[in-house]
């Protein structure tokens, strides 16, 4: 049901896109207006969400300590997983953001029979880590590759990236590794939501929709590159026009391009409304991005709530006799 609904939603989007692509009079809307609109929604929405998060203070310093604290000089501190310096936090965050450190932690133990009785072995359950890593990195590289359409001349670095990506030199145009990785990874991420019962149970329509959308974007991209070729010169003209805010609409781009750009626009517009905001949120997660130096530097809570206390005076007033009898010193005799 959840899956179907999401699939249906994406199919509707594709149909709309096809309609736009085959109606020449709508090309201006689909090629220029909608992308601008989507970009505005994306940038505006993203900033809005981040600002909204930022407006809520961090009242307490609550890092999750995942290693030995700094204490006695001869006890080795885990400077990354229990960081007491800014550098430590930067490394910790970099490991999280670039290499998904916490997902990597997923270990499992297995008991096997050895010659001298059972042996305990530590295996690892790293498929999720691997899948996500491939997914996100491929996504990033593909995005960077797309800069070739917006920049003239094409920077050398992007050309290098492309040549590495296409290093296998299979097919014409050469197959990009990232395209393959990306499609495999996104399929894996989808399949695990279908076949792992726990995941199936917790998944919402909002988890399937972006996956389908991304799949369709990747597919249209691949189709455009290898099968339904589009006029790349015209595409670049349009892209540079968009980037320099002097939009032009060259003719004869090819229908598949409009489908592709419409789906991309949908993703951009949807992004700030959704869980995809984890891209911004990960930077702001207080259990990871804070220095674990609570006992060394006082953290200030901007709204430090006034509360009622039971003071020592009240306590002594109540128990003075009992305290005196027990030989406990008191303030007032």
């Amino acid at each position, binding site marked *: 049901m959840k899956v179907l609904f999401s699939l249906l939603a994406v199919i509707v989007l594709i149909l709309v896109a096809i309609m736009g692509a085959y109606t020449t009079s709508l090309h201006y809307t689909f090629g220029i207006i909608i992308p601008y609109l989507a970009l505005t929604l994306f940038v505006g929405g993203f900033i809005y969400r981040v600002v909204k998060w930022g*407006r*809520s203070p961090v009242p307490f310093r609550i890092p999750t300590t995942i290693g030995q*604290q700094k*204490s006695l000089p001869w006890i080795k501190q885990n400077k990354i997983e229990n960081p007491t310096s800014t550098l430590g936090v930067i490394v910790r965050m970099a490991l*999280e953001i670039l290499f998904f450190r916490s997902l990597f932690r997923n270990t499992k133990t297995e008991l096997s029979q050895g010659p001298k009785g059972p042996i305990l072995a530590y295996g690892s359950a790293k498929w999720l880590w691997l899948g996500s890593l491939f997914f996100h990195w491929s996504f990033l590289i593909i995005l960077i590759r797309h800069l070739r359409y917006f920049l003239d001349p094409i920077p050398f670095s992007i050309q290098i990236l492309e040549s590495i990506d296409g290093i296998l030199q299979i097919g014409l145009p050469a197959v990009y590794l990232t395209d393959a990785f990306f499609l495999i990874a996104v399929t894996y991420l989808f399949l695990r939501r279908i076949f792992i019962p726990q995941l199936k149970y917790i998944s919402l329509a909002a988890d399937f929709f972006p996956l389908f959308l991304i799949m369709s974007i990747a597919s249209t991209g691949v189709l455009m590159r290898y099968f339904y070729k589009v006029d790349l010169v015209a595409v670049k003209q349009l892209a540079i026009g968009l980037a320099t805010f002097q939009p032009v609409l060259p003719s004869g781009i090819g229908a598949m391009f409009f489908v592709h750009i419409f789906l991309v626009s949908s993703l951009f517009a949807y992004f700030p409304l959704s869980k995809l905001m984890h891209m911004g949120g990960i930077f702001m997660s207080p259990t990871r991005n804070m220095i674990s130096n609570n006992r060394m530097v006082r953290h200030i809570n901007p709204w430090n709530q006034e509360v009622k206390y039971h003071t020592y005076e009240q306590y002594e007033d109540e128990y003075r006799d009992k305290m005196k009898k027990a030989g406990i010193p008191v303030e007032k005799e």
Partner: protein
Amino acid sequence: MAKVEKVKTPKPQELSQIDFKPPTTDWMDTPTVIKPGNFCWGGKEKDLLTLGLPNPRQWSPADEDWKLPEGWESTILEGMAERLAKYRSFKIFMDICVRCGACADKCHFYIATGDPKNMPVLRAELIRSVYKKYFTTSGKFLGKLAGARELNEDVLKEWWSYFFQCTECRRCSVFCPYGIDQAEVTIIGRELLNLVGLNIDWISGPAANCYMKGNHLGLEPHAITGNIETMCDDIEDITGIRVNPTFNRKGAEILFITPSGDLLGEPGIQTCMGYLMLFHELGLDYTWSTYASEGGNFGFFTSNDMAKRLNYKIYAEAKRLGVKWILGGECGHMWRVLSQYMDTWHGPADFLEVPKSPITGTVFENASSTKMIHISEFTADLIKHKKLNLDPSRNDHLKVTYHDSCNPSRGMGLLDEPREVIKAVCNNFYEMPESTIREKTFCCGSGSGLNASENMEQRMRGGFPRANAVKYVKEKHGVNMLANICAVDRAALPALMDYWNPGVGVTGVTELVANALVMKGEKERTTNLRFEDLPGKGGDE
């Protein structure tokens, strides 16, 4: 849909019929059943009155009617809005979960029950669904498709059931790629429940005691001194040495604070005897306080404000007595509060000095702001500098393993200090499997105020993953003693071990220290602190 199961006698044919069909209902459509043995009794009217908490009344979770106050829905929703504005953590954790499932099988309650709502991701979703409905655009329009749902009484009861089935142990947070911490979500969930008077007796009772009398157990000043006197008598019987602790003494160098669980009941008192012996042997200039007689903080399981109110006594008393620094005993959540909250609430503690061990001269720079150090840090330093005369062979009859308490490991990072201490005082030490210790430690199943007796089955379930790892080292190495640094552990683990691993005892680390400690002028010891014969030195031999 939350309903209370009535005990009814099944017909014989019903008995033999076993329902093999698993329901395929979505979690939102699966009712929460509130069953005896699986929940703690509700907070009592008198305790809520003492603490000034909302909606004090006599009520029972087993009743259909929970006597919620008029307009409770808006109280909860306003409470959510307030907390979203106050805590970035809450807001971000509500927004960015992608339901990747990395946390799902990391929770001890899920592992033991298989109940999907015990997966941290779904436990958070219980509240996230309501957040979506009332605080996000997509949830308002798309409803269930976006995972949103209305707040109603069943939802509230579901929250109560599952937020009091989470021990705030933070294990899930270790595995989450965004660091989403279910403990934080549970803390806020419990705050919201408290706004309409839904606490449990095992939390509000101790909190009320602590507020008025200074400690969770409600020990009045003379009872504290009396109990410690009794321990001193026992110490004298065992060692021939009379220790003379002082109480509320002004001008002492150090204020010592430990959870009150150490003052009453086994094996807490043996840990406490350990402190007394260690400090006496060192000639430490320290004092106990009857006013700040609680290190733990059950307010922390109620609301942030309540935690702050209970925590106040520690610095206030240190200031009144004019001590230089504070030494803290073995406790779990106490140290989460002390290391991540106390200074923010009640600092700066500029009337204190940076803790400096009078024995070794070590300055504890890691506590330069809070001015409070952990007994394991203190003892590990003593041992490193060879300031203690230890005879670890007195612990030779023990094969020890060490249980990391959740809070010192994942809310502080105190991992190696206690191990250093144990290795110095015991000859037989064995670690449990790597995935069950240190930052990945399994909870005792009774943390965060859930160590009541009416929910014993729930506790035995929640502690099963921990017990299972102990069983492994018991069978492999013959482990017979489970060491820890937490008062709740000392209260809860004996039952857990009796049930799952009979024959495995439970001890505080300082008890092990005191048993190995050769004190100046002591008589030859024939028993340990539990009056059990020492190996090879038994009186009857």
